[in-house]
């Protein structure tokens, strides 16, 4: 398994999933791919289809409606993959947490392997976060959530089960 994880960390294809983000994080993500920071040095490229992805990059607050979509996208991902949340919104909801369509942080019902906080995080912070993820995977300190069985608490909190996705 360690050999496989090592192969994974050498070539990370990133699928960006925006869950009603305000666009600041999206711009910083693109910044990390520009010539100045050039993430392709580490073999990191953006892909258009979740089937090709090894990293699911989530940005935004994931409100009651987009939470279900995020769950559906995650089910289509190909194992092994890593889920990384970018920005303060997936952590806490920030200023949107009193909004009528916000329920709870996305980390409570989706197993997120790494958070990169900031509003928005600088490209340096994103690169530092990704490098930390890569090192964690290689040393075995980080086991991707897709390879662990979900805990009973997580199953209970899946939006369809708990009714978060219902429109009321």
């Amino acid at each position, binding site marked *: 398994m360690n050999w*496989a994880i090592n*192969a*994974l960390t*050498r*070539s990370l294809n990133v699928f960006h999933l925006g869950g009603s983000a305000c666009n600041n994080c999206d711009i910083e993500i693109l910044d990390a791919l520009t*010539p100045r920071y*050039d993430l*392709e*040095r580490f*073999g990191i490229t953006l*892909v*258009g*289809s979740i*089937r*090709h992805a*090894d990293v699911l990059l989530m940005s935004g607050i994931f409100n009651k409606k987009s939470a279900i979509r995020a769950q559906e996208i995650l089910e*289509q991902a*190909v*194992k*092994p993959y890593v889920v990384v949340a970018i920005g303060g919104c997936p952590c806490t909801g920030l200023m949107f947490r009193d909004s009528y369509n916000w329920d709870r942080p996305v980390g409570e019902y989706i197993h997120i392997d790494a958070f990169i906080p900031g509003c928005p995080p600088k490209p340096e912070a994103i690169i530092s976060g990704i490098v930390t993820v890569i090192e964690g995977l290689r040393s075995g300190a980080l086991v991707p959530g897709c390879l662990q069985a979900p805990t009973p608490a997580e199953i209970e909190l899946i939006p369809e089960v708990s009714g978060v996705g219902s429109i009321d």
Partner: protein
Amino acid sequence: MNRNMIILEFLLFPGLLFTIVAGLLTSWVDRKVTALVQMRVGPPFLQPFYDIRKLFIKETCVPEDGAIGLFLIAPLIGFAAIAVASMVLWRSLLDVDSTFVGDLIVLIYLLVMPALGVILGSFASRNPLASMGGSREVKLMIAYELPLVLAVLVPVIQANSIRLGDLFSAPAPAATLSGALALLVGMVCMQAKLTIVPFDMPEAETELCGGVFIEYSGPPLAMFKLTRAMMLFTMPVFLVGLFFGGLVTGGWVAALIGFLLWFVLVAITIVIRNTTPRVRTDQAVRFFWGPVSIVAALAVVLAWLGW
């Protein structure tokens, strides 16, 4: 030559393994030159190998109600065809007397197979975006095959043979007016045959999210990527052999000249890829059936007249 030797040749030197390694190195050149054009550092030397190795450890997802058998066989069709095509091509290049009459036609058919594999796979996945990409690929294929075959006709007329060995030992057709025109047409068609920008509408990252490959994952996707890399290596080799003929066969100096010409063709392809936007399907068809076909037909007529 006995059968074991041929199998060994197919698996190792001019065939499968050699083409895979050379193709992946070519795709590294492609990515590195792209990075340099954009003033970036670019990927490490072994990055294409890492990418393929990673895809082999991923699981394979198949669409629930697609044609699963066809979906899984489709990547292998193009992969096998391009490996055989490369072997036929390289055996003629290495030893011009070793091939049979009519292998040029076999080669042209084999070079069509990768595109057919992509089309079959995209329709078998039953994904609407993949079907859209597949139908674009069909239209693109219809567009570029006519001028490509016309361009290939020029060296055939000049050497008066359809055996690759004869074409590869004839005086360079590119030195004549008709040959130069045909080479130009061949390079434009190569761009479309490799489905790279400006003719990449079958996969169109921004509109179709990967288009024809959207449902593929793991080893089948790796097969497609390998096939593309091998095409990127083989097509310029084919054009160099066809249009520079005797200049690039026999001896080390000729091989060096051939390598330089090959590199020039690849570099031109990459620079075009980095400096042009994607065209629409109708624009591509109009372009190939209009100016490109007319130039190709003109080249054939000139070759017929002995220019």
